[in-house]
């Protein structure tokens, strides 16, 4: 995701180096984790001296050095995967089928398969390091009739398959828990301190995670273990050793030392990978200081006002907003630059650009919320689409992050390959009312997953391949975003979030054929809707659509913080009064957003908190971002009202907003 647009200076100069540094650190940490693993794997409590000497011998052995090289390569490949798949906006599937589609997506399949093989590689290294009975895949048979032949070493196979399983489950859990999501923390810390503080959690997580996947793996092997064993022994022409227990029996699995080694290897695997993920997150989410203005024109694109208005890459926009929030809070010198006027001409370009961008973000969110609220009936279920096709079209455009469920209906290919043939056919589909009767979540499985797979396989060389699921790419299609920014460019931001509905194409007269097709589909849909499995798969997850709406709210939170701190600071620091001109706009956008947020929180499921995950590496902060947004919004309004106090009565405002503002002035919100 981060490599969407290679031309961006930010990707070249900042993100790439941060990624490289984080990978270098994870490789450097590898000897430490490996020696820890060696030490634990040789554990024998009864012979402590032998334990220590064995571990030391093993650490200096050439096989360990070779494993270390191999593991470094694995970590680098993992790192490249992380960099490719990372996102600052979590993608939240709105129904189970969307989740399924996400898991079966070719991009995800590549991820899973490579993690499978990487896991196998890591456990191979682990097996070689542990040595003993795990060392090789075959060993001379011990039974009398097979003397001289080679037998399959099931322990080795067991360990390798465990690695593959763990790799796969890591990849799968990564999707379910949004492991690829880089969350930004409210507390800034130095990288070392951050790492040190969270290391215990990472170790605990990897141990627990390994325990769980161990349990699942053992159950799986107990039932299906004979398959791979038979297959491998036939392919490699190895005998099955009948003298010892097979491992898919209770007696074979009740081997404490085997389970211990399995668990230790699993923990080692998870730990190396988690540390890589974790270091990458720390490095990428580190604050970056953009210059507010530059004396050289060639550096202009690196300045904060320019960077804020860029949409790609998303990580740059996020870091710029974070920087804005930080500078508005901590740095009077840089605030002064924001309030300054341009030298020839005396325009407040910096402030105008910054406030325009922040306001457009807020307006965008307001519109998205209003559209969502209109589209959802009061019982929290989608309205029948026939009656509110207008609302539907807006929803599909604006609720960008719920794209997995909403967008494929209207823009099935915007996110895919723009140049493909499918684009045209889908546009036709959009224009004809054929898709109208389908609720979004019922529509997508019929058309998109198959086509999605086809198109993606068809054109893997396209620059869009590899960025299929990124919500911000999808957002390029919708009109609202560009519409709002267009009007911003023209000078004044729009004063109301009144929906600017797209030109509605459904006015064309449907032909007989399409009507017939529509009826057929209606019948099929009615038939399917009665089946329990279909219902289970296609029912919306109750909280997901709400979470999806607020998926990128971290940006809005920063915009609110930045704006409110700047406005509050302008009370004493703004010598030219540049902020005063935009104050009515800022207040009205915030109040309108507050109205929309209040309305959203009246929906069912909106104010229920998700249960907190006890131990997972996936960051679940995105699930509660809506609460953070609401808190940040109120705090921002209070910051402005407490600073300006009674002076706010002089600000131009609608009567309704004035009433609301009065509530804030009286501390009654």
């Amino acid at each position, binding site marked *: 995701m981060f490599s969407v647009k290679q031309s961006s200076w930010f990707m070249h100069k900042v993100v790439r180096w941060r990624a490289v540094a984080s990978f270098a650190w994870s490789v450097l940490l590898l000897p430490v984790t490996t020696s820890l693993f060696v030490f634990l794997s040789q554990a024998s409590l009864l012979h402590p001296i032998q334990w220590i000497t064995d571990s030391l011998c093993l650490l200096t052995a050439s096989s360990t050095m070779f494993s270390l090289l191999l593991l470094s390569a694995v970590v680098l490949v993992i790192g490249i995967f992380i960099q490719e798949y990372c996102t600052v906006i979590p993608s939240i599937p709105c129904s189970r089928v969307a989740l399924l589609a996400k898991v079966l997506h070719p991009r995800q399949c590549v991820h899973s398969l490579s993690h499978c093989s990487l896991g196998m590689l890591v456990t191979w290294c682990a097996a070689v390091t542990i040595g003993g009975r795990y060392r090789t895949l075959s060993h001379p048979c011990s039974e009398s009739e097979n003397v001289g032949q080679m037998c399959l070493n099931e322990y080795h196979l067991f360990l390798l398959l465990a690695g593959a399983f763990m790799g796969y489950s890591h990849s799968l859990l990564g999707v379910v828990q949004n492991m690829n999501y880089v969350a930004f923390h409210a507390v800034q810390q130095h990288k070392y301190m951050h790492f040190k503080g969270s290391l215990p959690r990472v170790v605990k997580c990897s141990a627990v995670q390994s325990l769980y996947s161990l349990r699942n793996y053992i159950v799986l092997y107990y039932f299906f273990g004979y398959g791979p064993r038979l297959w491998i022994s036939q392919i490699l022409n190895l005998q099955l050793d009948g003298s010892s227990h097979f491992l898919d029996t209770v007696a074979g699995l009740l081997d404490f030392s085997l389970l211990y080694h399995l668990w230790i290897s699993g923990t080692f695997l998870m730990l190396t990978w988690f540390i890589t993920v974790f270091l990458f997150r720390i490095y990428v989410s580190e604050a970056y200081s953009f210059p507010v203005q530059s004396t050289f024109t060639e550096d202009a694109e690196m300045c904060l006002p320019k960077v804020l208005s860029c949409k790609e890459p998303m990580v740059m926009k996020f870091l710029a907003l974070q920087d804005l929030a930080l500078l508005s809070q901590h740095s009077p010198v840089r605030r002064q630059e924001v309030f300054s006027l341009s030298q020839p001409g005396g325009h407040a370009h910096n402030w105008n650009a910054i406030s325009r961008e922040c306001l457009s973000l807020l307006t965008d969110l307001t519109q998205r919320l209003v559209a969502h609220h209109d589209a959802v009936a009061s019982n929290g279920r989608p309205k029948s689409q026939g009656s509110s096709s207008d609302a539907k079209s807006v929803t599909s455009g604006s609720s960008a992050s719920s794209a997995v469920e909403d967008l494929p209906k209207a823009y099935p290919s915007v996110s895919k390959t723009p140049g493909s043939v499918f684009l045209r056919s889908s546009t036709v589909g959009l224009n004809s009312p054929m898709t109208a009767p389908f609720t979004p979540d019922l529509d997508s499985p019929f058309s998109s997953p198959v086509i999605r797979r086809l198109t993606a396989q068809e054109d893997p060389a396209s620059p869009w391949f590899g960025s299929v699921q990124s919500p911000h790419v999808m957002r390029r299609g919708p009109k609202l975003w560009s519409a709002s920014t267009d009007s911003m460019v023209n000078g004044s931001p729009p004063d109301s979030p009144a929906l600017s509905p797209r030109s509605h194409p459904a006015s064309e007269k449907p032909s007989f054929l399409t009507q017939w097709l529509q009826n057929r589909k209606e019948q099929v849909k009615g038939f399917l809707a009665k089946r329990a499995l279909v219902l289970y798969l296609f029912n919306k997850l109750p909280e997901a659509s709400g979470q999806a709406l607020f998926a990128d709210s971290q940006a809005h939170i920063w915009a609110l913080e930045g704006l409110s701190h700047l406005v509050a600071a302008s009370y004493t620091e703004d010598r030219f009064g540049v902020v005063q001109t935009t104050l009515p706009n800022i207040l009205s956008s915030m109040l309108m957003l507050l109205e929309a947020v209040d309305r959203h929180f009246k929906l069912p499921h909106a104010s229920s908190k998700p249960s907190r995950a006890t131990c997972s590496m996936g960051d679940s*902060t995105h699930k509660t971002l809506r609460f953070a947004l609401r808190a940040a919004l109120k705090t921002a309004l209070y910051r402005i009202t407490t600073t300006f106090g009674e002076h706010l009565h002089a600000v131009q405002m609608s009567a309704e907003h004035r009433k609301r503002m009065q509530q804030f002035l009286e*501390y009654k919100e």
Partner: protein
Amino acid sequence: MCSLALFPPPLLDGEITLYESNNELVSGTSASSCPKQEWDPPSLIFPRETLKSHSRPESSSKSAFLDHKDTLWMRSAGAWRDAGLSGLLEEIANRPDEVPKWLSVGSGCMLALLRWISSFHGSLFPHLTLSSEAMVAEFSQVLKWSDGAVRGFAWHPHTDKFAVALLDDTIRIYNSKSATSPTLKHRLQRSVSSLQWKPLCASELAVACHNCLLVWHIDPTSLSTRPSSGCAQVLSHPGHSPVTSIAWSPSGSLLVSASPVDTAMLVWDVAIESCVPLQRVGGGGVTFLSWAPDGGRVLAATPSALFRVWETRMWTCERWPCLKGRLQTGCWSPDGTRLLFSVQNEMVIYALTFSDSPGGPKAASVVADLSETTFSGPNGDVTVGGEVQSLAWDPKGERLAVLMKGVSEAPERPAVIAVFRTRTSPAFELLPCGFIKGEPGVEPRLMQFHPQFQHGALLTLCWSNGKITHLPFYFVSAGATTATCLPHHTAKGTEFSSQLLYTDHSS
């Protein structure tokens, strides 16, 4: 340096300090002679007898309810859930007849080992051997926390509203604009040690409880007198109990919490209920937190002779080892550049000055000496002075109230509040103002300045008889450009202008 000997002598018994005007404390015999303002904060009284404290030690109800016919497995699971590993081991070790001998002996040995290790740990950090109630009482800013009717008090930072935590684990909220005073009760709201309103917010109140943090959302427009426990957010973290101190960031975005048992201080993002532990070696816990009003620094005291000052931008800290004992209390000047603190076992107030230049201050300087001083009066000699329990600096930075511990064995030496006038420019100075005297036989337990008092400063005092009174200090702030009209006593205006400010350059 200012010392208590420069103070005017304390009032006689029977007289009560009413207010400060024209640079002197005015006394009277009853509270009714106080000048009226537009809103007089209610003077409340919570008699100790009417409040029933919860007399439920953690394990007392266990034997009454647990079915002893449970299987060993069930009981072990219960013990694991209630008391962790040591509980499990104890359960097994106590049933030698039901488990194999090796198991009971083994768990007995393990238990002994655990206890030995924890006693070793406890000898390094003696406070860990205290029970959690005793720990809260030890580190609380409230004098004699376990005994008083009022256990916590918090003014709202922006509006005339305050919350009072009482002995019976309820919190009551009083608002100038509404007649309803909601009572907050929650299952987890036990032994409240501290409470604070969220800045830049009308409704959120954070409460430090026995084993969690509660953040109440109280709708100011609601007429309900008993908000349901659904209005409270519960924030808990394993190993972080009891919570003895909390502090909101002045920008309202973060909340820090501290527990003497946990070496990490937690920084909460309350809305998303996530926390970041900030841990440094040494100290053995965090007992007291105070966030500078400008938001730039946080004071964190530990139970040993060490405190830290965190810088809140990148969350790095400076270590400040003290010589005598742990830091008992501290307060920041309104601009966040100066920290006043006092240390246990020392009767002085120290000051630290921070500036933006790197380096920082090298050493703390003594600014006030509170050692025992004897004043001779008509009824014999009165001795005043002692260790500091808590410090409060008014939001304008002009008055400093110091609550000094009395001698608990001697009834004639109760706790006393001394008030200093402070001046920050051109040089930092403490000037004596006077002692605050309450009703006879009653000592102050807790004090806090009103954050938004127009005519000077308003000190709220909680007394040992459960009374809450408000003591105004009328003065014109040195920084104020327009003289605000003082109520009532403008008649003394001429006297006021002719009187010289009392200054003493004794430092």
